[in-house]
C-alpha cells in the first residue's frame, strides 16, 4: 500500500522540516519512505513544498506523482496550487489563519484548522509547521503520535533541542484539535 | 704526491646517464643542477615528490632521480597541494616556467601561496614561451619582439608584464619569495642559496616558499649564450629586480 503526501507553504514556514519529521516517523514504523523537495535550492520567501511517499510493499517508490493522497497547505498560494492535485477521495488540510475556507471540489475531504492562530496562542508562530503536522498525522492515521514525537527528537539538531518540549506541545495541540466539525 | 680529490661531480639526484634535452646555452640546465645539488645537500631526494609542468621543463622527470607526477598545464601547484595534504611528511616541489606558473596557472599559483601550502615552487622566467617557439608570455618585456608581438610588446595590445616574485610576496601565506639570476657565478651561488632556503623552509614547516629564476632562451631570443646573459642584466634586471621580496624567517 502506497500513500503520498505534499506539505507546502511559504519559505521559512518550516514545511521541509515538517516533511522530514513525517518521513522519519514512517521510517521508524518500518516502512519504506522517500522525501524530496519540489526544488533543491529554495531560499526563504518563495513557496516551498516537499513530497513524501510512504510505502509498506514496494522497496522503491516512484517519484513525480500526478496525484496525492494528503496535501497540507500552510498558505493561500499553496492551497490554490495544490487543490487540483488531490486524489479523488483524498484530503486537503489547510491553515485557515492564512487560507480562505472554500470547497471548490466535492470529491475530496477538507480540513481547515487555524494553525498559525493556535501556534500564536502557544506563544510561537514558528510552531505552525509541527502543529500542522499533528493535524495531518491525526487525519491520515498512518503513524502514531508516539512515533512522530520520537521522530521529532531525531530530527531536531542538538542546538535546537531546547525547543523540543514546545514542539511536542504544538504537535499535541494539532493532534488533539477537533476538526470533525469542519469536515466537508 | 698528493692524492687527487674529486671536487665537482654529477649530483646524486640527477638520473645516471641522463642527458639534458635543453637547447645549448639555456639556463634550465644550470637551474636543474642547482635543484639537484640542494636535494643532495639536504638529503631529501628519496623523500621528495616533484610535480613537473608543461613547457621546456616537461621532461624534468627524465633528469631527476625523484618520484614525479606530471601536471596538466598550469596546475602543478594544485597537484602539489593534493600531494602535500595527502602526505604531509613528503617534500613536495614544483618546477615551472613563467607561462605555466603565471599565465595559465596564475590562479593555482596565487591560491597555493594564499593558503600557505607548505611546498616549494621554482619558476623559470625567460620572458617568452620557449617550447612553442618564442611567443609572447606573461613576462615578455614592454617593447620585446616575439613571434606573437612582431612589432614589440605594446601596452594597448598586450598589457603589462607580470612581476611574479612581488605578487607572490603580497600573499599572506607566503613564507619566502625571492628573485635570482643565473647570469654570473656570484648570482648562481645566490640562486642556489635561495633554492636551498625555499626547501629548508618546507622542512621547517613555515609555509609557501618561492624562487623566481631569471633565465635565458638563446634559441628564441636569437642570441649567443653570452649575449643572452647580457640581456638578462641589461633588459630584464632593471624591470625584474633581484632580491628577497619576503622572508618571514628573517627576524628569527
Amino acid at each position: 500500500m502506497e500513500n503520498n503526501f505534499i506539505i507546502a507553504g511559504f519559505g521559512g514556514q518550516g514545511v521541509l522540516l515538517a516533511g522530514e519529521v513525517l518521513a522519519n516517523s514512517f521510517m521508524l514504523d518500518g516502512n519504506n519512505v522517500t522525501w524530496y523537495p519540489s526544488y533543491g535550492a529554495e531560499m526563504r520567501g518563495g513557496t516551498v513544498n516537499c513530497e513524501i511517499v510512504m510505502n509498506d510493499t514496494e522497496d522503491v517508490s516512484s517519484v513525480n506523482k500526478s496525484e496525492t493522497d494528503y496535501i497540507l497547505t500552510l498558505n493561500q498560494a499553496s492551497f490554490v496550487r495544490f487543490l487540483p492535485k488531490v486524489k479523488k477521495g483524498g484530503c486537503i488540510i489547510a491553515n485557515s489563519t492564512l487560507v480562505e475556507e472554500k470547497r471548490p471540489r466535492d470529491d475530496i475531504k477538507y480540513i481547515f484548522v487555524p494553525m498559525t492562530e493556535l501556534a500564536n496562542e502557544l506563544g510561537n508562530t514558528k510552531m505552525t509547521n509541527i502543529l500542522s503536522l499533528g493535524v495531518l498525522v491525526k487525519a491520515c492515521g498512518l503513524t502514531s503520535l508516539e512515533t512522530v514525537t520520537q521522530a521529532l527528537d531525531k530530527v531536531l539538531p542538538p542546538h535546537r533541542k531546547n525547543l523540543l518540549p514546545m514542539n511536542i506541545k504544538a504537535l499535541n495541540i494539532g493532534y488533539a484539535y477537533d476538526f470533525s466539525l469542519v469536515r466537508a | 704526491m698528493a692524492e687527487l680529490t674529486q671536487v665537482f661531480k654529477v649530483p646524486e639526484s640527477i638520473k645516471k646517464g641522463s642527458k639534458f634535452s635543453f637547447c645549448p646555452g639555456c639556463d634550465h640546465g644550470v637551474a636543474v643542477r642547482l635543484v639537484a645539488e640542494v636535494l643532495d645537500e639536504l638529503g631529501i631526494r628519496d623523500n621528495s615528490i616533484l610535480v613537473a609542468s608543461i613547457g621546456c621543463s616537461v621532461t624534468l622527470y627524465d633528469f631527476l632521480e625523484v618520484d614525479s607526477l606530471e601536471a596538466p598545464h598550469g596546475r602543478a601547484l594544485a597537484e602539489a597541494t593534493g600531494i602535500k595534504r595527502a602526505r604531509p611528511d613528503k617534500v613536495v616541489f614544483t618546477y615551472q616556467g613563467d607561462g605555466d606558473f603565471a599565465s595559465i596557472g596564475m590562479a593555482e599559483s596565487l591560491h597555493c601561496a594564499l593558503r600557505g601550502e607548505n611546498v616549494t615552487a621554482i619558476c623559470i622566467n625567460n620572458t617568452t614561451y620557449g617550447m612553442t617557439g618564442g611567443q609572447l608570455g606573461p613576462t615578455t618585456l614592454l617593447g620585446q619582439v616575439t613571434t606573437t608581438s612582431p612589432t614589440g610588446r605594446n601596452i594597448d595590445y598586450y598589457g603589462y608584464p607580470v612581476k611574479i616574485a612581488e605578487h607572490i610576496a603580497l600573499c599572506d601565506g607566503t613564507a619566502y619569495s625571492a628573485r635570482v639570476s643565473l647570469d654570473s657565478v656570484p648570482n648562481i651561488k645566490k640562486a642556489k642559496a635561495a633554492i636551498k632556503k625555499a626547501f629548508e623552509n618546507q622542512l621547517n614547516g613555515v609555509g609557501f616558499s618561492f624562487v623566481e629564476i631569471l633565465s635565458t632562451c638563446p634559441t628564441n631570443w636569437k642570441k649567443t649564450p653570452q649575449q643572452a646573459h647580457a640581456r638578462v642584466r641589461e633588459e630584464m634586471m632593471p624591470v625584474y629586480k633581484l632580491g628577497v621580496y619576503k622572508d618571514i624567517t628573517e627576524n628569527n
Partner: protein
Amino acid sequence: MTECMEKTSEKVLTKGNYAIANAAVKAGCECYFGYPITPQSEIGEFMSGKMQELKRAYVSAESELAAINMVLGACSTGAKAMTSSSSCAVALMQEALSYAAADELPVVLVSVMRGGPGLGNIYPSQGDYNQSTIGGGDGDYKLIVLAPSTVQECADLTYKAFYLAHKYKNPTILLADGLLGQMMEPVEFKKYPYPEVDNSDWALTGAKGRRARVIRSYAPKAENQCEFLKRLHAKYDLIAQNETDWEEINTEDADIILVSFGSPARNAKSAMRKAREMGIKVGVLRPITLFPFPSKRISELANTAKKFISVEVNMGQMIRDVKLAVNGRAQVELLNRPVGTPPSVEEIVEKLKKESGIV
C-alpha cells in the same frame, strides 16, 4: 545527524548528497577537494566539518580545475581522494580526467547532474550521460561510471567507486542527479565491504631504496603511445568483463523492455508493475554501470523482445548505446523529459498501452 550516521546497524533518513559524503568517509576517503555548485553543495559542506574532525584533508579549492587536479595529486600517492561537482563544472574537469585516465590514477568524482547546456539550471537532469561515458577530454580513454537509483545505492555505489577506482587504477564517476542528491530515504551505512587495494608498486612515496617513479602521460614517441593505448584498452575490456552491472526485472517473457538508469528507473519499475496488471508483457533493465554498459545482455534480450524504450531525463543520450547493442534487431524508442523530474508513471503506462495496442 552526524551521530546517527556513525552507526552501522541502524537506518537513518538522509539526503543522497549526505549519503554519498558519509559513505566516502566510511570508505576511508583521506582527502576531499571541492568547489561549491548546486545541487551537490551538501557534499562539500559535510566534508568540511567531518574531514577536519577526523584530521583528514579538506581543501576549499579556488576552482573546479584546481579541485580535480588536487585529487590527481593526492591519488598519485595512492591516497583515497575525491571531489564532487555538477554538470557545467564537471565540464571544467574534463582535461584532468583525461590526464587521470592516462596516468591511471584512482580518482573518484561524484557528479550530481543538473540542467545544461551552459549554465542551464539547477533542476535534475541526466544530460551528462555522454559527458560521463564518452567524456570531453582528449584521446581514447574510458571512465568507470556508476549510476545510483536510490539513496541507499548512493551510499553503496560510493563504496564501490573507491574500490573500482583503486582496483583498476582508473578514474571513476558516481553519476547521480539533482533529484537523488536532494532526496531523503532510509539508508543503512554498512561497513566498507571491499578489500583494501595494495598500491605499493606504483604510488609516489619518495624514491627510497628504489629507482624513481614517474607518473606521466607524455609519450613523445608514437610507437610507445600505440603500446600504451593497447594496454589501456585491454584494461577497459577486463573491466567490461568483470564489472558490468545491471538490474533486470520481468525480462524473460517481455515484449517491451524499458531501459532506464538513475531516478527515472524508479518510475519505469512502477509503470512496469501497473502495465503487467493490465496484461502487458513489460520488463525493466536498469544499467548500474554506464561504463561498462550492459550491451551484451541487451543484445541477448534483442533476440526475444520486440521493442526497447529508453526512459531518460535528457534529449536521448543512453538510447545510442541501447541502439548499438540492439543493432537493428528490435525497435528502439525514446521516452524522455528534457530536464527536471522523470516521466511520470502514468505517462510511461500510456506509452506502453499504446505500444501494445490496448488503447
